[in-house]
């Protein structure tokens, strides 16, 4: 996330958990809470919660078991951007986008992207997912 994004006056919430499926419900709850407070319509809240779950589950599956799952929410009026990331199990781990789960994620989110970052000095390879969700179809 660029400095310009984080300085435009909107709220950022970051959640870090062990990369385990048992803790994804907690991250879902944060997504629901933020969407509800941002006045998302009920369908958009449901979609964001499900999209965040899908992204986190995909990443936990690809993660090194000792990794942290890091999930950042950038809350703006009318839109929430989510950036989730884990250290990958192997240096050449690639997230598949030819899965049912990925197609569901594309359906739920307005925009979704896979991010791969190679290992570097003092830093392990990571895989991440960035997604955007708007507050709803009803004009405000």
């Amino acid at each position, binding site marked *: 996330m660029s400095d310009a994004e984080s300085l435009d006056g909107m709220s950022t919430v970051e959640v870090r958990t062990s990369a385990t499926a048992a803790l994804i*419900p907690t991250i879902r709850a944060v997504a629901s809470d933020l969407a509800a407070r941002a006045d998302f319509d009920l369908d958009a809240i449901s979609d964001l919660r*499900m999209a965040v779950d899908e992204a986190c589950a995909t990443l936990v599956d690809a993660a090194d078991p000792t990794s942290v799952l890091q999930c950042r929410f950038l809350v703006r009026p009318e839109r929430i951007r989510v950036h989730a990331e884990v250290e990958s199990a192997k240096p050449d781990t690639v997230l598949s986008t030819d899965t*049912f*789960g990925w*197609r569901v994620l594309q359906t739920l989110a307005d925009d979704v992207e896979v991010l791969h970052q190679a290992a570097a000095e003092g830093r392990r390879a990571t895989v991440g997912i960035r997604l955007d969700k708007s507050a709803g179809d009803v004009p405000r």
Partner: protein
Amino acid sequence: MSDAAAPDPFGVGLPLDTEVSRPRPGTVLLEVDGEIDTATAPRLQAGLDEAMDAAHAEGSHVVVDLTGVTFLASSGLAVLIGGARRVTALGGRLRLVAASRSVTRPLQVTGADALFDTFDDVASALSAEASRPSDAEASRPSDAEAGRSRAADARGAGASGSRPSHAAAPPPGVAPPIGGVGR
């Protein structure tokens, strides 16, 4: 079964319960309560398999009661879709009971709702005549077939797929591969 292997940081076990019962002759009811996600989808699969095996042996219909489900992830959707296909291959329709947004929204936004007969409450599902389409399905007679054939075409292409409008037809490529979710 993955239950034993999955770490449980809260020490309370998986938050999903399933129960198979026979509320009346000719019907096997699977009641599901809790959250259906990656961790609990295997439990849903086991319950659905048990219900379907029993129904197949008895010549009964399966009704899946999802009114107690508070979250439905794609892994859960895949289990339900697999069940629908198994029932459809035998000439029937899988019946779901779902009224809360947690379940109806994922079914609707992915177009998977075309694969089921969905009811607002258990009583309606139990009293429905065999193979009668639900109100929603009656207005979209060929979408289930169209969705499956498009899904088969798009399956290997990794199509990006723009976000669908809330139209009648299921979006292409959303139905899972025959062999499973394949994450």
